[in-house]
């Protein structure tokens, strides 16, 4: 299991577009990907769950990858969040 903490920097947070590109990217990996936010565990392969968590700019989240290709999944997740989803 690997885990890293991030701060959401894009202005609109995890709204529709970032959530769907993020979920789609995580789908490629066989491991489980979970976002931990406000004591909630969110399935990061589900854009609906990500959006429903209402993660806004400035929010601090943990991304947890567990299973096959967990390092690759975490690296891509980090790159996406840190780039602000290209906004």
């Amino acid at each position, binding site marked *: 299991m690997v885990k890293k903490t991030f701060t959401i920097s894009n*202005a*609109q947070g995890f*709204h*529709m577009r970032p959530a*769907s590109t993020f*979920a789609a990217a995580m*789908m490629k990996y066989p491991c489980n990907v979970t976002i931990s936010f406000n004591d909630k565990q969110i*399935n990061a*392969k*589900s*854009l*609906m*769950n990500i*959006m*429903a968590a*209402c993660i*806004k700019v400035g929010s601090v989240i943990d991304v947890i990858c567990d299973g096959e290709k967990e390092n690759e999944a975490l690296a891509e997740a980090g790159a996406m969040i840190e780039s602000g989803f290209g906004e």
Partner: protein
Amino acid sequence: MIKGTAASDGIGIGKVLVIEEHSLEYTPRTITDTEAETERFNGAVKEFIENTEAQAEALRKSAGDKEAEIMTGHITMINDPYLRGEIEALIKGGQCAESALETMCDMFIQMFSAADDEMMKQRAADVRDIKTGVLSILLGIKEVKVSEAPAGTVLVARELTPSVTAGINKDNIVGIITETGGKTSHSAILARALEIPAVLSVPDAASLFKNDQCVIVDGSSGEVIADPDEEQTNVYTKKRSDFIAERKELEKFRGVSTKSASGEEYELVCNIGKPADAVKAMECDGEGVGLFRTEFLFMDRTAMPTEEEQFEAYKKAALIVKGKPLIIRTLDIGGDKDIPYMGLAKEENPFMGFRAIRYCLKNRDMFKVQIRAILRASAFGDVRIMFPLVTCVDEVRDGKALVEECKAELRAENAEFNEKIPVGIMVETAAAAVLADVLAKESDFFSIGTNDLTGYTMACDRGNSDVSYLYSALQPSVLRMIKRTIECGRAEGIPVGMCGEAAANPQMIPLLMSFGLTEFSVSAPSVLKVRKCISKWTKQEADEVCAKVMSLATEKEADEYLSKVCVR
């Protein structure tokens, strides 16, 4: 005559088509052949996606990419692996497709509705639409195909669902009437994008009107006339053709820069009262916001709005105008408003009393909350600060010192903001206009508030009918105030705008162009009219008219002369 909310300008005359809502009730069953039920569900989803794709395509053509995105969003959401997986699991557990779908959709509707974010709340409406769409297919309900409605149809519905709006096209739908929705609802925005007259919030509309009934929809006044007589039909047919001719003429000025006939460029921005108004400003082709009044945040409540609340509102407006200028005016409130928590005493003469910048500088803690919120919003666009009711240099210096204090705090907190945020002032008192040469050295920009400047200069209350004849921006004294303010600002190289009603007055426009005004800030519906008006004058013509007006001794003479030369 029936009254509703005027949501999209224009006149529509046609025959009613009522969009009925079908009952989506069903009796839950226990499933034994779960494989066949899963297949039935997947088939319905496939059909839903195909329908939605077709609707998105139709919308892209009729209303543009942004509207179509809502529909493609529905496809993304129904394809969510978690949602689909959970529904399939419920079916495997013996639930029928209808109830499995409903269980999961309702869960998300609840989650999204509970969010404290407007954008997320919208997602609840999306999930509701998805549920209705898939459920209709599962239950074999055929929806009315709006796209196949005959030409001259007036749509009547309880509310416009995205699947209904997607079928709307300008060729057959001439008007829209709904029971729900306000000026900024999605239906209203779409109706305006499609230029279809719409009256929303008409109580019981779906049962009040009958199919094939004749109606007139006046989307400008918010009125609906059922079964009009011949005279009414003639009057409205004329109104309709006039409206279309004017809109066509004005549309030539959409998407172009604001220029005089001789090529001088001006900024043409909008006055707004709340973040949602910024949407209208952008729709009307405003080049930004020249005056964002912040009083709405403070009214009708029992305590001061917090920094977070204010920040969210300012940020929202900044995101809507997308990098274009957003001038936020700090609180302009006094004893004329009843806001108990502010502890403002009733006074004899509130317009000359303890208000606006005077109140704010005495209530520094409260003022700092607003300034911090504006500064933080400046990380999201071209946000500028403007102080109201300035009368002397001390107020500008004190206000700016407070801005610096807030910047230092935010720096220490590692918060993001624009270090070079422009800080300007309203010139709306005679004192500020006379002192404009000195104030220009201390301000990053001026914005002339002609409504108050006229009142203060003429010492006249426009609401008092015995003296209101004095209230005119064409009074020689007021014109001199305006001229001086613009010239002093330009001499120091700062931009000078105008956010009062005079900025949209066709008689004033050539004078303002000649004085050297750089920015016109007007109400959203006036944008194209003002742009057209500016385009009719060359700088030289404007200068000649202005020189003549400035040589006239009375308001009456100026008005008479201008009403002759401004017929263009």
